[in-house]
């Protein structure tokens, strides 16, 4: 992962001419008085509908339902509304306004689900159950002789090659199955930072295993 990803191909387009509906959203939300209030109410209704749809879509992961699920959707919609209205000047018109706005509420749902994870009483962080590792990668116990040595080498590489923070995040995400957004919430960090920790850890582990001649590990970076 490059240190400065803005140097890659994905440059933002120059500000575009707004489609009529998006222009109306920007105009009304940037205004004042009753017209702005009405636009805010209408936007909140849209955001709440998207948030409800999204928490329903992800409810299998949440293990909650009913009022708690709806409360999460309300919180996500309210926080997204605040973010959107404060950043309305950053909308550049490369997409429809609603697509840009829905992105905020989807991110809020993700973040709130990440925080919600820690409300489960059964979550334990102090356990490093390395016996789970084969299962995490779908390895067949009946064929242990084929992968045991590799898994042992992987564990050794985790212990010797990774920094303390990389090892901590590896254990939480890979061994304990903690979702990345929940790790983000616990560390009071952001998704990009935690992903980067894991990205660097994965690269180190692959290099270490390849250096020890494990043939199953592809030594070239994916393209």
């Amino acid at each position: 992962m490059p240190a400065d990803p803005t140097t890659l191909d994905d440059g933002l387009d120059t500000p575009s001419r707004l489609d009529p509906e998006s222009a109306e959203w920007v105009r009304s939300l940037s205004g004042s008085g009753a017209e702005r209030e009405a636009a805010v109410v209408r936007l909140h209704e849209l955001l709440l509908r998207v948030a409800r749809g999204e928490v329903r879509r992800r409810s299998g992961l949440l293990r909650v339902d009913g009022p708690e699920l709806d409360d999460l959707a309300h919180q996500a919609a309210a926080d997204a509304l605040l973010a959107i209205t404060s950043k309305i000047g950053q909308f550049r018109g490369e997409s429809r306004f609603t697509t840009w706005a829905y992105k905020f509420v989807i991110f809020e749902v993700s973040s709130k689900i990440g925080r919600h994870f820690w409300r489960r009483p059964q979550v334990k962080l102090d356990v490093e159950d390395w016996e789970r590792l084969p299962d995490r990668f779908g390895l067949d116990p009946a064929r242990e002789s084929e992968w045991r040595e590799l898994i042992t080498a992987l564990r050794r590489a985790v212990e010797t090659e990774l920094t303390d923070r990389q090892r901590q995040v590896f254990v939480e995400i890979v061994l304990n199955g903690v979702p990345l957004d929940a790790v983000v919430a616990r560390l009071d960090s952001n998704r990009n930072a935690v992903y980067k920790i894991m990205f660097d850890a994965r690269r180190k582990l692959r290099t270490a295993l390849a250096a020890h001649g494990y043939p199953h590990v592809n030594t070239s970076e994916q393209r």
Partner: protein
Amino acid sequence: MNDLSALDRFLQTDPEDVGCGRAMELLHLYAELAATNAEAAAERYRGVAAHLRACGPCKEDLEGLLAAISEPRS
């Protein structure tokens, strides 16, 4: 042969992967294009596509955003 593909995929890193920050910044543009032409989106935003192949949370966000913009607005 034992299937080590999941482990191999986990260990793979793509130098084109732009990371979560940039992917999240561009996700609305990617989604709007992907809603009509997924291949065109992956080609236009190659670094984002590389990231989405490796990052479950960002891929989940994309799926949520696609669902939201595909929903009829009554």
